[in-house]
């Protein structure tokens, strides 16, 4: 089943002065049930705007979207989603426990069930010790944790998180990533935005890259990065001078160290040539490793590419 379906979704912010801003531009995207989808994009790309439209905070200028096969303008899909806004903020006059009871009551969860759920959520996000403190005394990381807890109060089928990893220390980030992975384990769909790339690489099944309100790439990470194999690293054992010079002429970089030769090759064709050269000698190939572009490099490549296009 398709968890989120977005069709030609557009949001134009009208301004009193100056020209209107197209924050999301004919976005079309589907997210499958049970996957972790990373929504990537530089600042101002329109990620938050998209997520706000999905959760009913903003009205789309045009286009449609469905969550769990129900149109987003209905109230029905909201029963099955959890939402963590960007830089969330909660009622300062409540304790975390009171806050979760409040949200639970909005979902119409009956009191006994609510209590149990809240206990398990505090354990999940690690806030048991401060559950009865007023939220105004919470640190940024604690706010983020209570934010995640509230997004799960209704056992949602789809969890939408806007920058869930921001404001967290490394331990906090690991905790949140573990929570996201455990949600997938339970069969839930996770749709989250971020610009912290290393995090995405480890947990996302698929990513979409949004730039200037347009979806420029979408696919599994392997797919996206496969297109972009840039270099191949080859390591050789000891090798005589003549072969070395031949090999050196074929590689982009050649380092000899500890009686080993490290080569960097920039095309697969040259790899074959090198292999042929090596065959004639008595040296051994220790390893051949294709180097994928890291997502970070890929991402900045896309952004600068786009910038150049705009400038033209």
């Amino acid at each position, binding site marked *: 089943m398709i968890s989120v379906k977005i069709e030609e979704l557009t949001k134009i912010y009208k301004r009193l002065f100056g020209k209107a801003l197209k924050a999301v531009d004919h976005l079309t995207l589907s997210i499958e049930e049970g996957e972790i989808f990373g929504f990537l994009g530089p600042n101002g790309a329109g990620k938050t705007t998209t997520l*706000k439209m999905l959760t009913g*905070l903003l*009205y789309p200028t045009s286009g449609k979207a469905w969550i769990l096969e129900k149109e987003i303008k209905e109230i029905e899909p909201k029963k099955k989603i959890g939402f963590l806004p960007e830089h969330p903020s909660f*009622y300062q006059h*409540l304790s975390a426990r009171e806050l979760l009871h409040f949200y639970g*009551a909005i*979902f119409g969860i009956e009191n006994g069930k609510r209590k149990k759920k809240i206990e398990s959520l505090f354990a999940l996000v690690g806030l048991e010790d401060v559950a009865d403190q007023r939220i105004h005394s919470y640190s940024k990381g604690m706010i983020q944790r209570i934010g995640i807890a*509230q997004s799960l109060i209704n056992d949602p089928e789809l969890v939408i998180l806007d920058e869930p990893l921001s404001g967290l220390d490394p331990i906090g980030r690991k905790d949140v990533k573990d929570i996201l992975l455990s949600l997938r384990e339970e069969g839930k769909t996770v749709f989250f935005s971020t610009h912290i790339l290393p995090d995405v690489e480890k947990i996302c099944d698929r990513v979409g890259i949004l730039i200037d309100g347009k979806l420029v790439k979408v696919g599994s990470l392997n797919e996206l990065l496969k297109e972009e194999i840039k270099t191949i690293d080859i390591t050789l054992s000891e090798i005589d001078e003549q072969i070395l010079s031949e090999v050196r002429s074929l590689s982009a970089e050649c380092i000899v160290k500890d009686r080993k030769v490290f080569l960097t090759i920039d095309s697969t064709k040259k790899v074959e040539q090198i292999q042929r050269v090596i065959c004639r000698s008595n040296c051994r190939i220790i390893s051949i490793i294709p180097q994928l572009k890291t997502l970070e490099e890929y991402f900045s490549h896309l952004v600068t590419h786009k910038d150049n296009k705009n400038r033209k």
Partner: protein
Amino acid sequence: MKVVTIALNTYRESIRDKVLYGLVLFSIIFIGASRILKPLTIGEELKVTKDMGLASISFFGLLIAVFIGTRLLYEEIEKKTIYTIISKPLKRWQFLLGKYIGLLLVILTVVIIMTLWIYLVLWLTTRTFDVTLLLGIFYIFLELMVITAISLFFSTFSTPIMSGLITFMLYFTGHLTRDILIFAELTKSRIVTIISHIIYFILPNLSNFNIKGEIVHKVPLETAFLLYSLSYGILYTIFLLLLSVIIFQKRDF
């Protein structure tokens, strides 16, 4: 049910607000202090205390309705607490109505506290107990209900300061709307008469709820007038709430 959840939370928020305690404390001192303006005869003293009592319920109620009412939505939006509420399965009108009812409950609580205090002061000073005072207080509450709806209405699209100013302005002109009609009659101009009638129709006619003088001086009130005022208050409030919902419904956050 969802409306009740929002209302109770709004109530809890205000009840935990120190500003409210300040206002209530101040009003209690204010009513008690009417004793200091010691008049000459027993009868006068009774009237002054009643008068001051009703006036302070009206005044402090107005302050609470405007100060809390105009911030009710603004702070939710400004502090983004609304994000995690509108994204839940709750209709926007339920949220708005919940907020309104919550604030009305706060005002009701304050009115009840002040009423009890007035009766206590009256009993201690004059050993009297006058039930008709409750009728006056009920109509003050009706007026506060309308004013709260006005504050809420303006806060759906405007800042607290703007909404506050407009609400105060409407409060004062709202007590003068009859004078506008009288003025129109005097000018004998058709256009002025028509415009005055339109203004009279749109502006809240708050003098409908002002029966303080009659209550304090024990002037009998017509039932027809009381019923008219009651239905006017309810209808005007419903009308304002509907308008607020229409505007709030369209908002982006």
